[in-house]
């Protein structure tokens, strides 16, 4: 696999779009947290409500892991889009055929892409870890690993986005169209998720049936559902402050969806004409 990854690196190391998106992502993760840090320090913590309810610092240790993971989660579209571009480039340039003609198996071709998706998720999580650490120390609170599982949830979210991106890439094959489908899918899933959430509330209220936030049982939302902004006294973002009802169920679903994406992506590459 190392040999395959080295070849994959040869393909992308001089690709301008890859370099630009990577730089934007790294800067974006730091910047979005810095904005929250500054806004919190200069506005929220000075507000009357917070003064009344008690000091809230999203970057104090034990909160910084959650805050940074949640905030950086919004930027995971960037690596996902980059992966769509990388896989659809292969189809556009027909290099997927050439790679196989030159001596890769179909499985090797798709496995190295899946490992790339995994590595991008790992690097994203490492970036979040260090960003959380840096802002945590900036808050002046003593170091704690409490809540570090959120970085793990972030990793799963990154991997889910990347795997959805790969699957759409191998199904659609054309860059612009695939990116369009990715966004449409996000929109449609979020819409269905909202409907399911409303239904969940009704079931709870009228039928005394608690099925949790059913919207979080969908593929992308199961990855999103585990990451929430730490409860803050202002409770500005309804969805953001409400953690999912059954985190372990949502976590399990997220892993099941990952396996399904893996199977569907590999199966597509193995069975279809290239």
């Amino acid at each position: 696999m190392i040999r395959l990854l080295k070849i994959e690196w040869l393909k992308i190391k001089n690709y301008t779009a890859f370099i630009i998106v990577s730089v934007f992502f790294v800067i974006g993760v730091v910047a979005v947290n810095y904005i929250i840090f500054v806004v919190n320090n200069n506005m929220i913590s000075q507000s009357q409500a917070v003064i009344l309810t008690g000091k809230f610092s999203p970057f104090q240790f034990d909160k910084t892991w959650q805050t940074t993971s949640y905030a950086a989660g919004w930027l995971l579209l960037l690596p996902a889009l980059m992966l769509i571009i990388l896989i659809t480039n292969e189809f556009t340039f027909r290099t997927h055929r050439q790679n196989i003609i030159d001596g890769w198996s179909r499985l090797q071709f798709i496995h190295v892409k899946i490992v790339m998706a995994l590595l991008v998720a790992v690097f994203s999580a490492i970036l979040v870890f260090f960003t959380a650490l840096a802002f945590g120390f900036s808050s002046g609170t003593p170091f704690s690993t409490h809540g570090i599982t959120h970085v793990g949830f972030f990793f799963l979210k990154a991997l889910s986005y990347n795997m959805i991106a790969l699957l759409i890439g191998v199904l659609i094959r054309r860059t612009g169209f695939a990116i369009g489908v990715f966004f449409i899918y996000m929109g449609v899933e979020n819409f269905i998720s909202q409907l399911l959430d409303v239904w969940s509330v009704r079931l709870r209220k009228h039928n005394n049936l608690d099925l949790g936030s059913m919207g979080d049982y969908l593929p992308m939302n199961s990855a999103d559902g585990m990451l929430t902004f730490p409860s803050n006294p202002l409770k500005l973002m309804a969805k953001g402050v409400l953690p999912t009802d059954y985190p372990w169920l949502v976590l399990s679903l997220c892993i099941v969806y990952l396996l399904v994406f893996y199977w569907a992506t590999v199966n597509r590459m193995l069975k279809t004409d290239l």
Partner: protein
Amino acid sequence: MSVLSIENIHKDYGPVQALKGVSFDVPKGSVFGILGPNGSGKTTMLAIIMDILKPTSGTYKLLGEVPSEMHRRQIGTFLETPNFYHYLSAERNLHIAAAIKGRGVDDIPKVLEMVNLTHRKKSRFSTFSLGMKQRLAIASSLLGNPSVLILDEPTNGLDPAGIAEIRTLIKKLNLEGTTIIMASHLLDEVEKVCTHVAILKKGELVATGGVHEILANEDVVEIGAADMAALHLLVQQFSGYNSMKLEGSLIQLFYPIGTIDLEGINRHFFNEGIVLNHLQLKRKSLESKFMELTN
């Protein structure tokens, strides 16, 4: 030993049958042409061999074994279009191909020189003309000095000088022992370069064998006489022609080009007591032979 052995390959696209039970063997050391008009299934056949397309049914063997990616690494293939990363230079693209093959990195300067692209090795693939892209694809297929080359329409998009260079290169590589499998719709190309040929027509194998047997480029003499039985007997004792065929009420004699002596033929049969009532020279062009086979 057969380098490639194809057995009863079928490929369907819904109701369309692109290949209908094609079987043939490619002998080691040959230049094997797969000849057929556009849409006859040549590229489909090669794509199946390269695991780009899945056959509906049928099997094939590469180098006498059940095919795998390890066999493909030993074969230099240029299939249909030059497929490279547009944003990378010629040299970097060849690095990727060599890395996948697991051999041939040291060959990069040599193969670029062979196809006259050394001066453009640092240029991005996207800046290349069609002919240059084609030549880069041929260079890539030569990496690692493969024992088998598969070339699909290798002279497409090349200028006359480029076409001549590639033909010379193919002949040279074949002399050095490389088996070459080449798909083409250009008769002239196949005739000039190939030792063996398989002719495909609408997904069916029409003929396969030595190129001089299948695409014999001959002159034909048609003869007839009142007593055809006697004429037939005499023809069998007659020499100088390659083959003979009964065509309706006439006999066709096939001669190597330019060797026919009509006067001599006439005199011979007259001296033997047969007066010919029909004596006609027909030139059988390669095109007419091809049309005969594929139409």
